[in-house]
Each structure stands twice: as C-alpha cells, then as structure tokens.
C-alpha cells in the first residue's frame, strides 16, 4: 500500500518546508489502488447509551503555567506589558499536591524551570500534546460520532481523532498529539493516549515527560455545563508512580461561542527568528523602539 511505503515521508517533509507557490509539478509516485474501501458507513451519531459531549469547552485556572500550586509571579516581559504579563496564582491540580519525580528527573525539571522562557515548547508554538492542550487557556470543541470523537483546539489550530472502534491498535510512528483510543465506561469517555513525542511539557514550569509517556484521560459529564477532566500520567522513566490531575471543563454557553483561529506561528516567529531579521538590534518595545539595558531612565 502506498501509505505504508511512505511512513518516513511525513517526518522528512516536516524538515523540508520549501516555498511551493503552486505544486503541480509532475513526478513519479507509486500507483494508488483504483478502488479503496470506505472508512465509514451509515451509523447513528452517538451510541444510544453514551452521553452527549458535543460542545465547546474550556478549562479555567492557571494549570498551563504550573500544574502544582503556585503564587503569582512575573514573566520577563512585564517591562513591556506590565500587569498584563504576570502569571496568575493557582492551586495544584495534581492529586496529592506534587508530582512524584524520580530524583534525577526532578533535577531536570528544576533545570527546565530555570530556563523556561527559552525552553517551553508552547512558547515556540509547538503542538502542546495531551494533556496540556486540554487546560491551555483556549477553548476546545468536541464532535462526537460513533466511530470517532474529534476534538478541535483553538490553540494552534490543533486537533486529534479519538478512535472508538479499534482497540488494541498502535500508532505507526510517534507524533506530537500521540495516538488516542477511546471507549465508554458508563458515562465516562476513557481515552488512552500513547506514542507522544518526548518534546512536549505539561506546563510552563518545566514539568516534563519522556517518550514512554502514557496518559489515560477520563471525561465525565457533571450536569449540563461541566465535564470532570481527569488524566493519569504514567512514565516510569520520569516518575516514581502514576499520578493524576483533575479539573472541571466549563461549557462555553454564549450563543455565539465558536472556535476561532489562534495560529500561534505568527506570534512565535518573533521569539524564534527576531535575531535573524534584517537590521536586528535587540528586543523591541511595542512601539517599535529598541529595548536596551543602557536606556536612560530619566528619559521616561
């Protein structure tokens, strides 16, 4: 099959983004089967017994800054954005309060935290992975069908498919969003997420994992407008035991609520490429003037 032969291509292609204004050049590839079976046929949208999770949901709180309890603090851009650029305080969403790191991993977490503004993958607009995309402070929308549950995330235009009809299968390759297999346990949608890249973090505070990460998510309706979200994190290379986070997801009840675009690339470009711009002289203020440590404070 064509697609199997091409497993390696998406990885290589990702590394070779070249300006293709129009890509109608003709070059040989393997032939595709002329008649392929269809993936899905007629089926009711939702299994009769399953609750309806369709809708736009959003986490509140500051878990994406730090899963563990934390007081409010500064970011490095308070000199530009003032009070808009503080990190809000938050109670721990980790069951038991703290994350059970292995000793060497805890050192790594602390090193990550020291240099988080340079290292947090989400600051660079990299795909945040699971569970972080759930509690990043942007809405998500659940589309529920019998064979798949699709979640669209506003942040970065990311999404994932939760396969409801292929238990026991595995992803052919790791990915930033991993491979999600779902099933119902009573009213709860249970999702096993495997094959995530090691490159994502759980928050901006340096909390991390390895490529061995397994996440079990549980989405349970609690009334009309709330879901209880729980995620159990298992990663024996980093943690001494599985640990769990929990938080509510709130339904966006505004009549005009919708997922809009937050294509984060355009914002991350400043962080990633500013130093490679023509005439780069250093970080700039919002008015375009260059920020300099030698600025005379008496000018202000």
């Amino acid at each position, binding site marked *: 099959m064509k697609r199997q032969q091409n497993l390696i291509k998406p990885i290589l292609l*990702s590394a070779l983004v070249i300006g293709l204004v129009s890509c*109608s050049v003709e070059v040989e590839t393997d032939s595709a089967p002329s008649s392929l079976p269809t993936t899905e046929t007629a089926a009711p949208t939702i299994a009769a017994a399953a609750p309806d999770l369709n809708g736009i949901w959003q986490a509140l709180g500051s878990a994406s800054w730090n899963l563990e309890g934390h007081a409010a603090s500064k970011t490095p851009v308070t000199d530009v954005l003032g009070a808009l650029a503080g990190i809000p305080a938050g109670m721990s969403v980790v069951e038991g309060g703290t994350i059970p790191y292995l000793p060497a991993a805890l050192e790594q977490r602390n090193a990550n935290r020291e240099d988080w503004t340079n290292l947090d993958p989400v600051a660079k607009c990299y795909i945040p992975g699971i569970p972080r995309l759930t509690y990043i402070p942007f809405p998500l929308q659940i589309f529920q069908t019998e064979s798949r549950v699709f979640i669209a995330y506003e942040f970065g235009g990311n999404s994932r498919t939760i396969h409801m009809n292929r238990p026991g299968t595995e992803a052919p390759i790791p990915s930033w969003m991993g491979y999600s297999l779902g099933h119902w346990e009573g009213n709860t949608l249970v999702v096993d997420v495997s094959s995530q890249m090691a490159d994502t973090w759980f928050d901006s505070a340096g909390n991390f994992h390895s490529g061995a990460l397994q996440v079990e998510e549980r989405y349970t309706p609690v009334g009309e407008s709330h879901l209880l979200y729980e995620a159990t994190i298992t990663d024996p290379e980093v943690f001494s035991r599985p640990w769990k986070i929990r938080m509510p997801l709130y339904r966006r009840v505004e009549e005009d609520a919708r997922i809009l675009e937050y294509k984060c690339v355009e914002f991350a470009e400043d962080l990633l490429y500013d130093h490679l711009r023509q005439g780069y002289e250093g970080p700039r203020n919002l008015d375009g003037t260059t920020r300099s440590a030698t600025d005379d404070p008496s000018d202000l």
Partner: protein
Amino acid sequence: MKSFNMACLFFTAAFLTQTGWADVPMKSWGKPSLQGNWDYRTVTPFQRPAAFADQEFLTPEEVDEFETAVRNGRAARDAREFDGQASQSDVDVGYNSFYLDQGTTMTSTMRTSQLIYPENGRLPPMKAAAREAGAYFRALQSRSPQGPEDRNLFDRCILGFNAGPPMRSGAYNNMMSLVQTEDYIVIQTEMVNDHRIIPTDGGEALPSDMRLWKGDSRGEWEGDTFVVTTTNFTYLSRFNGTGENMTLTERFTRLDEDRLEYEYTVDDPESFEDKWTAVVEMKATDADLFEYACHEGNYAMPLMLSGARKQEAAGIEDDTWLPSWSR
C-alpha cells in the same frame, strides 16, 4: 457518438444519485454521510491543456494514454539535469521524486481539466490590480528575506499549499478527513495539520473586519449536497491570485461508497474578470491522516533567514530566491 455516451452516463449517474438508488451511506438524521478520509490526489490538470482545446471529456482509452504520458514524463524528469549542475536525484529544486505523492490517476470525472467554468477550462483573465498584487508577492519572494513575513504562508507553516480553502491536489499530503454531526461538519486537512469547523445551519457571519487565514466558513444542505460559503480571508490568504474579498463556495456531494464530488467556485470580481469553477471526485480511503507538524520541523525558515543575513554581510544582493522550478 462519444459525447452521446458520456451524456448518457452522466445522466444515469445523476438519476441514480437523485433517487437514492446509488450506494450512498446515510446518517440517521436523513443526510448523506460524508464522514471518512478522502484522497484528492489527481493528475488531471487544473487548467485544460492546449492539446485538448475544445474537448471536455476523455474516453477511457484517452485517460489511459494521459496517465501513461504523465508517468513517462516523470521518469524523464527524474533523469533530467537541472540548471546544468545537478541531476533530479539531488534536491536542487527542493524535492526529488521521493518526496512527491501526487497520484498517478486522473480524477474519475474523466474531464480534461479540473476547471469546468469558464467552459474552455481556462482561468478567466486577471484584473490589473490582481496582477500587480501577484507581481508584488513574486518580487517579495524573489529577494533574500528580511524577516519571516517576506516568505509566503506555506513557508511559514500558517496555511498548507494544497489545504485551501479550497483544497487542490498538490505535491504531497493530498488527504483530508470529514467528521460529521448533525450540527457541524469538520474538515481536517493533513497538510499543515489544520481544521475548519463548519456549522450546518448557516451560522452567523463574522463581521467583515474579523479576518481569518482560512476565512469564515458557513454551511447548509441543499438537498443531498453540503454547500459551504467562505468569506473574510486575509490579504495574504491567496489562492491562485485571489484577494481578501473572494467568496468561495464549495459543494460536497457523496456519489457512492467510494467517491465524494468536490466542486468549488471562486467569485472574486476584484481580481478576476469572471467566476471560475473546478470539480474533482475524491476517493474514500482507509488510510489515516498523518500529523504534518510543519512548524515544529521548519528548519528551512531559520536557515533561509541566516542565509540571507550572511549574504548581506558579504554584500551580495540576491533576487533568485524563487525555487528553480517556478522561475
């Protein structure tokens, strides 16, 4: 005789579809199921080649002939020298054939082009302002980039070159997935890992000053066809020379188990003298979409920018940044 047979074939197909005799899976709420993964690779030319002049359809023999010619052309290209320096086995033009996945078959419409309107299968003339805009962007991408914004949205991993809207078969990753509930249809494109959420009840249009990279898409069913209207593009969201005030109308019709007809009309009177319409038939596939993590792997952008800075430092002015195949 040929045209009679073709007309007969299409009439029959239309009749079967209209009367529900064709094998179209349905949703429990009475609409055709569009859900599934769809492959839109095709070698059918976007515009009708001069060789087919007034010929709208091909016979099965002519389709075979065309596909063979494409394969032979690719083989010849593989062996050809580029710029007199490197062979196609190198990556002189960004990609060699290993990276490309454009399919080997014509779309099952058996048409000579994807464009069906204007009737000659060719794009209508562009207006002067649109030609000027095109020249501006071409010049911008020819010069060594001053910053990432000088490169197009595809280089920046903001949009996918074949992901649209509208979707059109390109170099690779010509796959999309439809997820369907009664209230929404979501289009997930493999290229640049993106999605569009389309309400089936038309929804509320965004105010005209809220511009989105992919525009604002609203849908409704016209019988068994799902019709999506998209407006509010940005001035950078260009499709074949369109501008920010394009109105795009896409029509999705499931023909049977294996085929999804995808027809779209571009209405952009600021840029073109006339509307234009294209149609292809996408194929159902069991293959999953891969995660095309474009930005995460965009080593090209920092390399291009640092190359440009290096040229500057050496006092080199370079306006040859368009890839050699597009010059």
